[in-house]
């Protein structure tokens, strides 16, 4: 403890910040469970336990104090984000591997909390989807909540082909990328029994759950409005313009904003202050770039969702963005009365 001024401190802590983030995730998780069953909770549990074990081991190896870091909640936030981006019926070791990559490689090798230039959960997601594209895109059908069957998929070897299907984003991309299919957006999204027209039936409710939690975080001043607003705005604008130009080829803003990881990304992933931009203007640029890349990768790329890659790509740009968007310092703003 320092014996220098200031001697007064506001009661605030990293722990409170992290716990608020976890709490804000709950509404989205609840809806997620409603549509995809309790396997979601199992995945979160696997990830959380792995994260805490990995964090403990790494802290011990690095000879850091255990208590303040284990209780700060940052490892849990990472674990939950990894778990929420995995398919609920992914095998257990996928979650374990993902969390290990996130905690050990993306976080602790860079010095632990606060030092990682890349979002750990997104590093994990990208590594997994590159290594196990098949497993990472096996989502159960919306409404398939048979816990026993899910657990067999997670812990056993039961093939769930019968109930597995692509996410709306994935289905749309695959159809549109196959010229022979002559698919149209309305054809794919409208014809499919389980998909609604907004974000894919079920998905839009999960997105609204995350939106609710996210808005609470803004209200609690844990995050600022800049990143979610710029992200959702840019994503909406890009998809709107494209869908206006060619409604058959490009899905509209409602679909893009409410499907996949868009809402989770806007409020919980892109707003990670450690790996994201920190200046007000930088946040806007960061989020806008993130949204644009997400849309490009979703529409033209080879992967089902673009959030994770876009996040890493923008993480790479953060030092330069921050450097070039430093706010003017008191007295250096140019105009004086």
């Amino acid at each position, binding site marked *: 403890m320092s014996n220098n001024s200031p001697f007064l401190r506001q009661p605030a802590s990293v722990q409170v910040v992290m716990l608020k983030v976890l709490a804000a995730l709950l509404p989205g998780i609840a809806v997620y469970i409603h549509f995809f069953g309790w396997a979601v909770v199992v995945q979160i549990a696997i990830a959380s336990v792995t994260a805490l074990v990995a964090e403990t081991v790494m802290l011990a190896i*690095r000879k850091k104090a255990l208590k303040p870091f284990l209780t700060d909640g940052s490892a849990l936030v990472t674990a939950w984000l990894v778990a929420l981006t995995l398919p609920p019926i992914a095998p257990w070791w996928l979650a374990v591997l993902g969390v290990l990559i996130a905690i050990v*490689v*993306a976080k*602790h*090798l*860079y*010095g*632990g909390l606060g*030092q990682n*230039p*890349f979002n750990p959960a997104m*590093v994990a997601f*990208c*590594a997994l989807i*590159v290594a196990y594209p098949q497993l990472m895109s096996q989502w159960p059908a919306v409404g398939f909540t048979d816990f026993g069957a899910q657990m067999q998929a997670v812990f056993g070897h039961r093939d769930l082909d019968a109930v597995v299907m692509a996410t709306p984003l994935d289905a749309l991309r695959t159809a549109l*990328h196959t010229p022979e299919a002559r698919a149209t957006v309305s054809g794919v999204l409208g014809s499919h029994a389980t998909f609604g027209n907004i974000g894919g039936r079920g998905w839009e409710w999960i997105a609204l759950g995350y939106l609710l939690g996210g808005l609470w975080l803004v209200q609690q001043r844990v995050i600022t409005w800049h990143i979610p607003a710029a992200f959702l705005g840019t994503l909406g604008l890009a998809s709107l313009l494209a869908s206006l130009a060619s409604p058959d080829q490009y899905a509209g803003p409602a679909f893009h904003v409410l499907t996949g990881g868009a809402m989770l990304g806007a409020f919980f992933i892109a707003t990670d202050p450690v790996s994201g931009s920190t200046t007000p203007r930088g946040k806007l640029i960061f989020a806008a770039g993130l949204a644009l*890349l997400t849309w*490009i*990768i979703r529409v*033209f*790329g*080879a*992967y089902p969702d*673009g959030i*994770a*890659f*876009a996040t*890493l*790509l923008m*993480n*790479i*740009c*953060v*030092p*330069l963005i921050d*450097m070039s968007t430093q706010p003017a310092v008191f007295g250096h703003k140019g105009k004086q009365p």
Partner: protein
Amino acid sequence: MASYLFIVLGAVLVNNVVFVRILGLCPFMGVSKKLETATGMGAATTFVLTMACGASYVIDSWLLIPNHLEYLRTLSFIVTIAAIVQLTELVIQKTSPVLHQVLGIYLPLITTNCAVLGVPLLNVGLKHNMVESMLFGFGSAVGFTLALILFAGIRERLEGADVPVYFRGTAIAMITTAIMSLAFMGFAGLDKYK
């Protein structure tokens, strides 16, 4: 016109020399500690690589192919590139001595930067014409510069990070490169989309 754009964009992002083709790692690791030097190195490489691609195309299609001397390709490319690098070095030494000192061993290293030899050879393989060759060279070099500058930005910040002792310096730089490479895989498929 659009196809030219695709060549450049493809070379910059989708098939980034450093992150996807894994070429030119030596200067990438060596000259990325400071933003300023990274920019300088990038500029020098861009110049050399664009020139090298043009010159290689000329030599290949006007000298080697008509005379059925394709087996001299690698040799003659190396000679050409070496000369261009030497020229660049002389110019930089005159115009920016500090940059010259900083780039030090790396400037001659552009000669052996596998990217600078690799890209002209890729050009031959891809059957690019003169304009395409130079655009491809330029795009690859811009991709290299981009990689270098972004990497330097991260490294400048990492300098203040509490990285575990055994991972300081090159080790963490390698890991960072890996993650950046992972991120660039997100661009996969973009160049095939027509």
